[in-house]
């Protein structure tokens, strides 16, 4: 649900059973994509024709939905996923500086994974923690009032 790192490697048979389990829900495509994203850490392009067949949609329609939403990954993330809020409330509490610090510290740009596949850094637009800005998550765990020093300490725990 929060785009965590891959739990297991991609498996089209397992993917098909997820699709079949959810296909009778109203508006099934979103719950299906979420379930796949949660299970494998990303949604492999090879599942597009499978979903299209099961839901009686065109491949273009499935591809269109898959690529519209920020949450659905097209490739596995790094072992740890860091999301930093870039929205206004966090900006008012030195969020831009935190973002710059994170990029320097991890040597990646927003949306990138470090070459050793250890960290993926991503932007998020509001975690609803605006009364304790700036905010971020590491592997889904929430952190408020994050300073650059606190960021370093949290990242060091993952090394």
């Amino acid at each position, binding site marked *: *649900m*929060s*785009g965590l790192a891959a739990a297991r490697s991609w498996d089209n048979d397992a993917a098909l059973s997820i699709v079949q389990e959810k296909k009778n*829900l*109203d*508006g*099934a*495509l*979103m*719950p299906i*994509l*979420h379930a796949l994203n949660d299970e494998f850490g990303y949604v492999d392009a090879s599942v597009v024709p499978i979903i299209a067949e099961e*839901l009686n949609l065109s491949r273009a*329609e499935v591809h*269109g*939905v898959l690529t*519209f*939403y*920020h*949450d*659905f990954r097209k490739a596995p993330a790094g072992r740890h996923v860091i999301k930093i*809020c870039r*929205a*206004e*409330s*966090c*900006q*008012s*509490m030195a969020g*831009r*500086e935190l*973002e*710059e610090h994170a990029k320097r510290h991890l040597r990646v740009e927003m949306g990138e994974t470090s070459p050793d596949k250890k960290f993926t850094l991503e932007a*998020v*637009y*509001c*975690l*609803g*923690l*605006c*009364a*304790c*800005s700036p*905010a971020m998550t590491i592997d*889904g*765990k*929430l*952190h*408020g*009032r994050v300073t650059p020093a606190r960021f370093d300490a949290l990242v060091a725990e993952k090394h």
Partner: protein
Amino acid sequence: MSITLYLPGDSGALALGADEVVTALQVEALTRKLDLKIIRNGSRGLFWLEPMLEVVTPAGRIAYGPVTPHDVAGLIDDDCLNGGQNHPLYLGKPEEIPYLKNQERLTFARCGIIDPTDIEDYIAHEGYRGLKAAIRMQGAAIVEAVTESGLRGRGGAGFPTGIKWKTVLGLEADQKYIVCNADEGDSGTFADRMIMEGDPFLLVEGMTIAGLAVGATKGFIYIRSEYPDAYRQLETAIVAANRKGYLGPDVMGSGKAFQLELRLGAGAYICGEETSLLESLEGKRGMVRAKPPLPAIKGLFGKPTVINNVLSFVAVPTILDKGATFYKDFGMGRSRGTMPLQLAGNIRHGGLVEKAFGITLRQVIEDFGGGTATGKPIRAVQVGGPLGAYFPTSLLDTPLDYEAMAAAKGMLGHGGIVVFDDSVDLALQARFAMEFCAIESCGKCTPCRIGSTRGVEVIDRIINNENREKNMVLLGDLCDTMLDGSLCALGGLTPFPVQSAVRHFPEDFNRPQPQRSAGRAAAE
């Protein structure tokens, strides 16, 4: 004897280390052989005091905060388990803290008090009284009560809720839907999150009443994926409500059915726009629909649909329980009832402030907020999320009501108030408004899709002092085009923060040399 403690499981408290405090409490309980019962309540919304520990004593609850794991042993040494007053973190009775005492909590009356996973606790604190009243009424009478209360859409647009419901009630259809917009994406807002995490049954009750009112048997709550804790709390609540007969084929013995399902968003801000949300619920790209037809007439899967914000639905049980007049007696002008305001950003005492409409921005920021967190002077306040205007300090006496905010060329929106100190650069904030619109545009209409990217470029040229005067004119034209020509509020309101920044802070667009601050470097 067992001692009952409350320590919030609210996301805001978790982000400040609430789980670690619970672990420390459990360790102390083991080593000291204490029988502690720890309930994970919602937050009272006083985030500078989170994690806030509350101990149940014969004299009522006693609060301590903000607690870190290192404080726990000392707190127990200082007799906090009996409400001891000696520890520096002692706060006394939470309801006596002025920040809480000076509020008018109707919607948030239970939040932070009850165990949000326990339906019996909800019922014991006046829960389900609104629904109980509603099942004895005709649908039209429920709609009439909601109309009479003056409740307006709390999502931002402020459309009268009763009129929306009346439209759906008056239509014949084989299926009608109730949809809750819980895609709270505005920066500076967290009221939906707090109530879903801290009092989820209230939302279930409000939507059930809506279902009975208009004759809809099925409802969906569309929650943004950034709120996994809210999703889990509602999941638990829906199971419990079904088990107790508050949801299902025969709601409270009324013979009427109402089912609720949860759906998760996927990181698209645009899905907070109601027609885009409906598309997403149907399993499609979150592309905005042209209106008309209104969702009330042709909504989810083409059926008549009531779609309201979380804060609108959660206001309804109070109205049905205590009466439309009770609710209407709060507020000013055409803005009736209370508004859960959210104080955020660079603010000393950030949190949730539920007040009757009409309190001024200054009162909220100074009396409740206590000024900036950094201690520097306030320079700008953005009200109503990323599409809301930036107010200068000279406009802080504007009352927070729909019409007064509109008259000041701003909007109340979802009630988020983000404070900035004097280090803010409004040219950068204006640039971000355009950048955000470019990132989140659904791409359906040209002014939004292309205008936002052009907006970033034009503001960059202004910042870099390239043809500044001509580019300022161009920016004004571009804003007018987006305002008049966009299909929905994203493109249509992005000019609000931009134009307000230009209007109230012209000096930020007129600096001789681009400054190389960290923030500016970040934007380049």
